[in-house]
């Protein structure tokens, strides 16, 4: 049943204020650090201070004897008990990709505590469990480890060279991933092209930096014998599965609860060693145990992201129509390949974005290095690919002496071509197909909003005064609604209220509002009568989680399906009791009413109470349904960032004068929340474009391990962002929705780099990477001044 058939939908599409904010703003959130359990112990980790070494004798004797220390662990204490960590879901290679592309994917399981060798600064070596975190950290200072240092390799391209030191002593080389994929005949196209541009564009290393660092509490309840784990994970059911298999417990005996989560951005969407070790300790000791990651741990030993180098070539005919794109890119995987193809393949299948490119050849290599491993971060490979593609588009425009917006207009796929097939395989290994979108309209809107002709006039005038203004565009796609499924359970409670359960928890996205909007529409009850409990594995058997811009599409469709079923059950049961035809009933004001006679009504509470008392009924309660939704295809959202900047050539400082985002994400459930997602993502993207850079020195020491040096955007960095929306409902699901959580973060590095390069074109500056800090821009300008036109 589509929403249209149910009549007007009162809640979807409305900016309902977030129901969660009242509680959160009053300090009544329940984050990991807020949990208090009598007798709880605290854990601290000894982490490697060197990038690569053989380690000998992790001597815990002194630590074990300190006051307040309850237990100490090293790798030897885990031998024969737990296997190294494998993110098995992420590591599956879809059949289509295996058979057509046959990628090299080498997996290096992560030992829970380092044994014999450490491969990056921050790797966990030993664990102390004590009465307080203070005492645990005191004990870390007396653990004795001997490090025989080994050569470390930090640069991913150096790691791939013949004769590079090995990142892992036992590996045959430093390759974690290698694959080639394409369509058409690039060589042939290059021969016939009027213009060819090639260049190298790199994305730097980021740390997702959620406001709340990672954390976990585990406790085996002696009454039930079950292990309860409170985690700020994005994927509670996956955590449950891993803990159960790791500790040899039935999945039902592990209860994972995702509490309030202060941002995840992907960093909390993969499984990490700490998530297995804390439950293990809780099992061993029979006492509640907590680990709260601190910021220094998060910056050095929480997963990193983004670092990619693209060597990209684009070819076009004389009118600027793209003929071919070739890209050879390297992903820095860090010390282990933790998530397989996820990021490299996401880069690959988002590279050409909204453009019609008949011939494509892409080679992706994942390099191991002695650095923290990398994993998805808001955008997950898309910002890196977009940076390469949108930068080369601007280089192409420069070579053609064409307005960059015009070059884009000539190449975007049109709505008439939808659904559009790229000729590539998508992440599932099936034919990549964009479901809907209107890219020409987005371009039109953006060009009008920033008033491009006016910006060009002002740019000329400013130059006369020695001021440098520039404009940049970046377009991207976001394949959302990653499968395989999400589930929802919708139940009428004895009070007549409704409760929804789903496996996709919120890390701040406002699920308690948007998910409830959908259920209220499907059930025909007020939102205030419905509550959402997401991310509690005891309440719904299976779930995937909130990652990859998938939660709204997958969970809301599951909720919609379950709610439609429950509504029917309500009507059927009431009809049986009221002895009327179900078709004559409707739900209004939390009551089942006989259409046209408001006097004949039964509240949901009365209905619930009556069902068990009914003689000769079906005996089935059933005002509760579970439904799983499997997205049939990706719902492809899109975005366009247009930004106007002024750059001070004397200091390299970039000032954002105007920032416009036009986005398209199908039918919007709650415009205010959707806009906030876009703005938040854009703020993070601006951070990466202008400031953020996780750096190591040559020996592999992280040198940006505090927020003094790892510079996040602040309120002064982020301008007001003007938004516009294009709506192309997705044909892939009944609600017509698409995801949009990541999109905002995808555009800024490319858009800002394009704008800054445009501003500095009189100096011949070419931007190859971000962040566009004053220092880096000033150096480029100084080099460029020599060739000032």
């Amino acid at each position: 049943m589509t929403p249209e058939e149910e009549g007007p939908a009162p809640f979807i599409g409305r900016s309902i204020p977030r129901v969660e904010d009242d509680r959160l703003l009053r300090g009544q959130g329940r984050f990991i650090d807020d949990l208090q359990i009598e007798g709880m112990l605290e854990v601290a980790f000894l982490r490697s201070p060197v990038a690569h070494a053989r380690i000998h004798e992790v001597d815990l004797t002194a630590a074990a004897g300190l006051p307040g220390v309850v237990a100490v662990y090293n790798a030897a204490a885990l031998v024969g008990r737990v296997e190294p960590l494998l993110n098995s879901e992420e590591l599956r290679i879809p059949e289509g990709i295996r058979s057509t592309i046959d990628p090299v994917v080498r997996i290096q399981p992560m030992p829970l505590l380092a044994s014999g060798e450490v491969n990056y600064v921050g790797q966990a070596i030993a664990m102390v469990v004590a009465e307080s975190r203070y005492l645990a950290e005191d004990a870390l200072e007396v653990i004795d480890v001997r490090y025989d240092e080994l050569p470390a390799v930090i640069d991913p391209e150096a790691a791939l060279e013949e004769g590079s030191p090995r990142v892992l002593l036992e590996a045959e080389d430093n390759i974690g991933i290698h694959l080639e994929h394409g369509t058409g005949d690039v060589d042939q196209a290059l021969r016939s092209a009027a213009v060819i541009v090639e260049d190298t564009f790199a994305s730097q290393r980021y740390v997702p930096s959620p406001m709340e660092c990672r954390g976990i509490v585990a406790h085996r309840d002696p009454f039930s014998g079950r292990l309860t784990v409170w985690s700020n994970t994005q994927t509670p059911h996956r955590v449950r599965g891993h803990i159960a298999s790791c500790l040899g417990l039935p999945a039902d005996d592990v209860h994972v609860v995702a509490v309030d989560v202060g941002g995840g951005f992907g960093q909390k969407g993969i499984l990490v060693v700490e998530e297995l070790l804390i439950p293990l300790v809780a099992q061993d000791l029979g006492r509640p145990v907590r680990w709260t990651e601190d910021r220094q741990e998060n910056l050095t030993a929480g997963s990193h992201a983004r670092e990619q180098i693209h060597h990209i070539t684009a070819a076009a005919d004389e009118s600027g129509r793209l003929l071919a794109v070739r890209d050879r890119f390297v992903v820095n995987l860090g010390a282990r390949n933790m998530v397989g193809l996820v990021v490299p393949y996401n880069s690959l299948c988002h590279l050409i974005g909204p453009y019609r490119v008949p011939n494509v050849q892409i080679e992706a290599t994942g390099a191991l290095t002695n650095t923290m491993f990398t994993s998805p971060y808001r955008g997950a490979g898309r910002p890196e690919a977009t940076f390469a593609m949108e930068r080369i588009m601007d280089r192409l425009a420069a070579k053609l002496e064409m307005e960059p917006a015009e070059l884009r207009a000539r190449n975007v796929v049109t709505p008439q071509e939808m659904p559009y097939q790229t000729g590539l395989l998508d992440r599932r290994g099936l034919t990549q197909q964009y479901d809907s979108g209107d890219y020409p309209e987005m371009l039109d809107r953006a060009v009008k909003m920033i008033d491009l002709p006016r910006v060009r006039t002002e740019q000329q005038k400013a130059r006369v005064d020695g001021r440098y203004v520039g404009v940049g565009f970046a377009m991207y796609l976001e394949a959302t609604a990653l499968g395989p499924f999400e589930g929802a359970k919708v139940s009428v409670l004895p009070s007549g209220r409704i409760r929804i359960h789903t496996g996709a928890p919120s890390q701040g996205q406002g699920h308690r509002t948007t998910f409830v909007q959908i259920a209220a529409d499907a059930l025909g009850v007020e939102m205030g009568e419905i509550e959402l409990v997401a991310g509690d594995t005891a309440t719904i058997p299976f779930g995937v989680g909130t990652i990859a811009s998938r939660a709204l599409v997958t969970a809301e469709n599951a909720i919609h399906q379950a709610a439609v079923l429950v509504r029917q059950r309500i009507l059927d049961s009431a009809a049986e009791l009221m002895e009327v035809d179900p078709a004559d009933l409707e739900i209004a004001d939390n009551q089942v009413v006989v259409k046209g006679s408001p006097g004949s009504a039964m509240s949901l509470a009365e209905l619930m109470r009556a069902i068990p008392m009914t003689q000769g009924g079906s005996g089935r309660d059933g005002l509760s349904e579970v439904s799983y939704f499997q997205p049939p295809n990706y719902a492809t959202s899109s975005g366009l960032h247009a930004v106007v900047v002024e750059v001070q050539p004397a200091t390299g400082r970039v000032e954002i004068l105007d920032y416009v985002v036009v986005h398209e994400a199908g039918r919007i459930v709650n415009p205010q929340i959707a806009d906030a997602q876009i703005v938040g993502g854009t703020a993070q993207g601006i951070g990466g474009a202008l400031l953020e850079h996780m750096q190591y020195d040559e020996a592999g020491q992280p040198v940006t391990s505090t927020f003094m040096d790892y510079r996040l955007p602040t309120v002064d960095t982020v301008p007001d962002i003007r938004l516009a929306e294009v709506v192309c409902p997705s044909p892939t699901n009944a609600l017509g929705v698409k995801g949009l959580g990541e999109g905002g973060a995808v555009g800024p590095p490319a858009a800002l780099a394009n704008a800054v390069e445009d501003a500095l074109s009189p100096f011949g500056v070419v931007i190859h990477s971000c962040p566009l800090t004053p220092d880096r821009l000033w150096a480029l300008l100084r080099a460029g001044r020599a060739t000032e036109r």
Partner: protein
Amino acid sequence: MKPAPFDYRAAHSVAEAIRLLGDGDREIKVLAGGQSLLPVLNMRMGHPDVLVDICRIPELGSIDVDSQEAVHIGAAVRQAQAHADPRLRSGWPVLTEAIGHIGHPQIRNRGTVCGSLAHNDPASELPAVAVALDAELVARSQRGLRRLNAADFFDGPFSTVLEEDELLTEVVFPRQPAWSGSSFQEFSTRVGDFATAGVVVRLERAGDVVSAARLVFFGVGGSPVRVAAAEQALLDAPVTPSSTAAAVSALEEQLDPVGDIHATAAFRKELAAQLAVTGINQAWERCA
């Protein structure tokens, strides 16, 4: 990120504080606003045995202007309190401006003026202001009282001439003479960051010419850097583009900043020169 164990002592008088600091057997640190000290302890880069909290000492908590019209800022005075003080704003405006560049309001609500001087972070603002305005720093210990000129106080990155047992009790900024003007200039990547480079300029004017000049840079050396050759170049002439250029050209030889992940040495030097030009011009305009 939890500190190792330490004893905490809250002193309630200067006499008590310096008695506690005089216990030579243990490593003792003064705790003022804690905005620099506590991160050091939390990262376990320092392991003092005792912290002596001086912020509860009533006699150190005020800002007083004496009969000579010099201002005394006690060691317990928070940066925010100094920042809001109207007497400072009118009499020593560069001090107010400089404090506004220290971190964020939360930092300034706890951090003290004297703590910043005692800490002497090479990129911090206040040591340069103290040198530029000829401040005097008063140090007390059980051994007695020392009055130190700012010019002699700072002796290297994170280092001053204060002895282990000495408490900096106050900083005194002398009255700024008529016909003098100052300027504070700083470049930092984000609002609130430590300076990439900065300068405090103070000029005195006699008739149409500069009669005294101070150029004190921060963020470009281990301590506040006074560049005498640049000051010299400004003397006995009005401030003009050519005198400014002469002053700035002296910087090339005299400044020797180090590069780090945020800025190369060359960039810091270039910024210092640009800031100096702006600073000299503004200070000259303010010489009224």
